[in-house]
């Protein structure tokens, strides 16, 4: 057996947009153990719920993350609305569904670009982010925000989208889909990508399930689990199947995200066809008294917003379990046995969001 050495990976590393530290225990070039450390950007946002009124707190929930901001906001309000028994207007639920899928596309295209960058494929990185601009433009046009949308509120949404604009959005997405198809051809077939991702960081279905893997990370290992199947927002009115791959490697996780772009476009198309006319918010009175774990499918997987109220305007507790936090054990196991050169690709393959994980 070779002598073991431990080298640090992160918290600052060219491939990491956010800080996580790994102590990598190596034998020659092989990783035998990876020990993660987080806590570099812990903000204690959950504690702020004790200082902010439950209606105001949605602005903080949205700021947990700059990528899946909208879904953090919508899941938080979903939890509060369930506790308070608020009937949210149908049109607002459809709008939440549409913006959620836009968020997913924005996140997946961002990730595809970063993944290409981690492989040194700069042109593909730029192509992915060029397509992402279309999504950001639509988010800005309909909510006013490219990063933080600020569109959700307890009882509905703050803005409506007129039916003409909704039609234009679908037309724009159908044109974009042609370009996404071309982009995916490269991600799915290019020999340099296959060389760096096939058979790398393998975790198969049984192990991934026991490790609690969620989202594209779990679905890349064959777990057919997608929180949208719970039927929150307007997903109970939409037909879709979770995208599942069985390879369990970095390639499978990449393919899941590439294919999910098409699923998102299809969901938006269905939602625009079915969205009813009507109000987009109801007046909210009273205070939350009770508890609920709201679950939703973020781009990175299942997110949980737990709220507990005692009948006052300040919640007793808001706890967020983010998908990255749930996927840390998966990452630790996927790194064990890999080559040192593959560490950046495997870390990127779970799409880590440390800002989310630390709140």
């Amino acid at each position, binding site marked *: 057996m070779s002598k073991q050495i431990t080298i640090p990976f992160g918290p600052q590393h060219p491939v990491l947009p956010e800080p996580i530290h790994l102590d990598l225990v190596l034998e020659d070039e092989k990783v035998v153990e990876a020990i993660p450390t987080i806590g570099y950007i812990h903000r204690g946002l959950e504690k702020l719920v004790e200082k902010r009124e439950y209606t105001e707190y949605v602005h903080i929930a949205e700021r947990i993350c700059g990528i899946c901001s909208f879904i953090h906001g919508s899941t938080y309000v979903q939890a509060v609305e369930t506790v308070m028994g608020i009937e949210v207007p149908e049109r607002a639920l459809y709008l939440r569904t549409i913006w959620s899928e836009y968020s997913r596309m924005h996140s997946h295209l961002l990730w595809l670009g970063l993944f290409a960058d981690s492989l040194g494929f700069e042109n593909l990185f730029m192509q992915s982010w060029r397509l992402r601009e279309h999504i950001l433009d639509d988010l800005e046009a309909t909510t006013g925000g490219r990063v933080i949308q600020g569109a959700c509120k307890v009882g509905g949404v703050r803005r409506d989208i007129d039916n003409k604009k909704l039609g234009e959005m679908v037309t724009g997405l159908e044109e974009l889909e042609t370009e996404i198809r071309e982009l995916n051809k490269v991600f799915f077939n290019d020999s340099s990508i296959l060389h760096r991702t096939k058979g790398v960081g393998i975790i198969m279905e049984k192990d991934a399930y026991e490790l609690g893997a969620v989202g594209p990370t779990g679905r890349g290992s064959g777990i057919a689990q997608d929180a949208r199947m719970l039927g929150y927002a307007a997903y109970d009115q939409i037909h879709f199947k979770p995208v599942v791959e069985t390879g369990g490697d970095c390639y499978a996780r990449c393919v899941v995200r590439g294919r999910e772009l098409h699923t998102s476009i299809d969901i938006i198309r269905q939602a625009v066809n079915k969205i009813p006319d009507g109000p987009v918010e109801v007046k909210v009175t009273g*205070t939350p008294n009770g508890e609920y774990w709201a679950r939703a499918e973020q781009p990175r997987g299942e997110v949980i917003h737990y709220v507990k109220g005692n009948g006052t305007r300040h919640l007793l507790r808001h706890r967020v379990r983010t998908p990255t936090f749930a996927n840390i054990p998966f990452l630790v196991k996927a790194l064990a046995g890999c080559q040192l050169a593959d560490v950046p690709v495997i870390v990127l393959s779970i799409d880590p969001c440390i800002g989310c994980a630390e709140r």
Partner: protein
Amino acid sequence: MKTEEQPIIPTGIPDLIPGVSALKNEGYRLVAISTTKLGEIFQVDYSFDLNFSFRTLRLLVPQGITLPSITGIYWAAFPYENEIHDLFGIMVTDIAVDFKGTFIKTAIQFPFSVNTDKPEEDVCQNK
């Protein structure tokens, strides 16, 4: 919009490991371990899911108590158990990957274990 039934099963510390083992044997996955401070008491929730059936084992424990780790049953519980120690100061014994208080680095020790004064003088906008 659909909402979920979410049964909560009150559990004592001696029943925790057998309860978690039973759920593991039924095929449940660990979803989260969450802690809430209720005055001088901690509410520790172990949440599980099987095919979108969500359930929670709930412990109510006083400050200073030590909990057994469930990482012998669900190895993936180690981030949650380190988190409840680092944020709430609840001791957990025999965690499979024990960071001994260095998993989440905070300027204030056990920041979520303190009670916050609430700005009760504020006027509620939703009355």
